[in-house]
């Protein structure tokens, strides 16, 4: 039952996204212009871009992209539509569907961002599959924690500021793990060295999803 609900809700989000492409196209433009701005700012002296800087800048771009992309996941829904959902689906279905949908959205955006970034600023990654895995985990991790935060922020008055304020501290532990893991992939270290980070990331994701699953009904009620 819950599973079916989730599928329907994801389908609804996909259809909505497809019909009003401006949101997705806007995010694409956001990603590409940010990457290009980075290129222009570093391009003057191309030798300053060391591997750790390359990595950090990529993750910062991804962080801001995801905050912007996910922030609208509850804000764009009109009041009437939310009331309609309230009467026909369970809150658990809504939050899980949003998390999965946002993870898919973030994955697409992150991969495009990585490709464009590597194209423009050069690609020093030595272990590409591992790096892609860290991007996958990053997309999932960002979407799990930011979806709940955007639900909280959407209730408040100045929600866009609040979104940033609430999400950055919560996301930092995840970001640190991701940066460390992708640094290992960049240097082409043995894959077993990233196992610690990988397990911690999965554990944090599990905690966040469980807490969101339990808490969202209370948020939804108001």
């Amino acid at each position, binding site marked *: 039952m819950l599973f079916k609900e989730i599928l329907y809700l994801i389908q609804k989000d996909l259809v909505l996204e497809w019909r009003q492409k401006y949101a997705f196209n806007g995010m694409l433009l956001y990603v590409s212009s940010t990457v290009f701005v980075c290129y222009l700012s570093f391009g003057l002296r191309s030798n300053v871009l060391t591997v750790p800087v390359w990595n950090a800048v990529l993750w910062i771009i991804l962080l801001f992209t995801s905050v912007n992309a996910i922030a609208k996941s509850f804000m764009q829904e009109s009041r009437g539509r939310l009331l309609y959902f309230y009467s026909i689906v369970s809150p658990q279905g809504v939050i899980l569907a949003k998390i999965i949908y946002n993870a898919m959205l973030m994955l697409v955006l992150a991969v495009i961002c990585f490709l464009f970034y590597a194209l423009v600023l050069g690609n020093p990654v030595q272990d590409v599959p591992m790096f892609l895995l860290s991007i996958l985990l990053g997309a999932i991790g960002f979407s799990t924690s930011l979806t709940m935060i955007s639900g*909280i922020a959407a209730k408040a008055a100045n929600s866009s500021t609040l979104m940033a304020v609430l999400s950055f501290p*919560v996301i930092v532990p995840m970001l640190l793990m991701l940066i460390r893991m992708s640094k290992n992939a960049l240097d082409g270290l043995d894959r077993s060295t990233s196992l610690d980070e990988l397990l911690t990331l999965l554990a944090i994701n599990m905690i966040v999803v469980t807490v969101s699953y339990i*808490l969202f009904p209370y948020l939804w009620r108001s």
Partner: protein
Amino acid sequence: MKKHWWKILAVLLLVFTVVAGMLSEVPRLPILNETIRNLYFHVPMWFGMILILLVSFVYSIKYLKTPTTRNDIIAAEAAKVGILFGVLGIITGMEWAKFTWGDYWSNDPKQNASAIGLLIYFAYLVLRSSFNEQQQRARISAVYNIFAFAALIPLLFILPRLTDSLHPGNGGNPGFNSYDLDNRLRAVFYPAVIGWTLLGVWIVNIKSRLELLKQRLYETV
């Protein structure tokens, strides 16, 4: 009087902590020297912070189960006192770090984690202040408080253990227990932890009673 024994205990323990902490005999260790006395002030702040934030967390859960003003106020006031302890912990820690590690801020994972932890709770205060309607504020900040505490636990207890830290007990450094927390230190340290935590609980108690009275006053006027 019977109800207030723990307040007297808190006062006595803190007097003991300050007097004995400053005057008692401590082990002479290289680098640490006399700064080891900070153990009685810096470390209990973190114990106190975690316990008081735990109180806040529990009252947020209680609020979601039975939404009363009392539960909300206690959760909020406990979070504020937790922040106070955290700030004091960071200040005493920076002072200690200056004398032992050579810098106020030395990019230590635990220092960073505690700074991020404080940011999470500052965000909680910002979130609280952005609602006008009281019930909505109470429920949504309770949700965020629970979410934040779940994020804080891996931050403070799991991540620093994965990396090298200058703190004892991390990244191959032996913990206090294993070599230098001898019985002379322990005799002051444990009372200090209990004393500071009780003081924090006392502050929460008074502040939440005051807030409740204020609320009642507004309602009757």
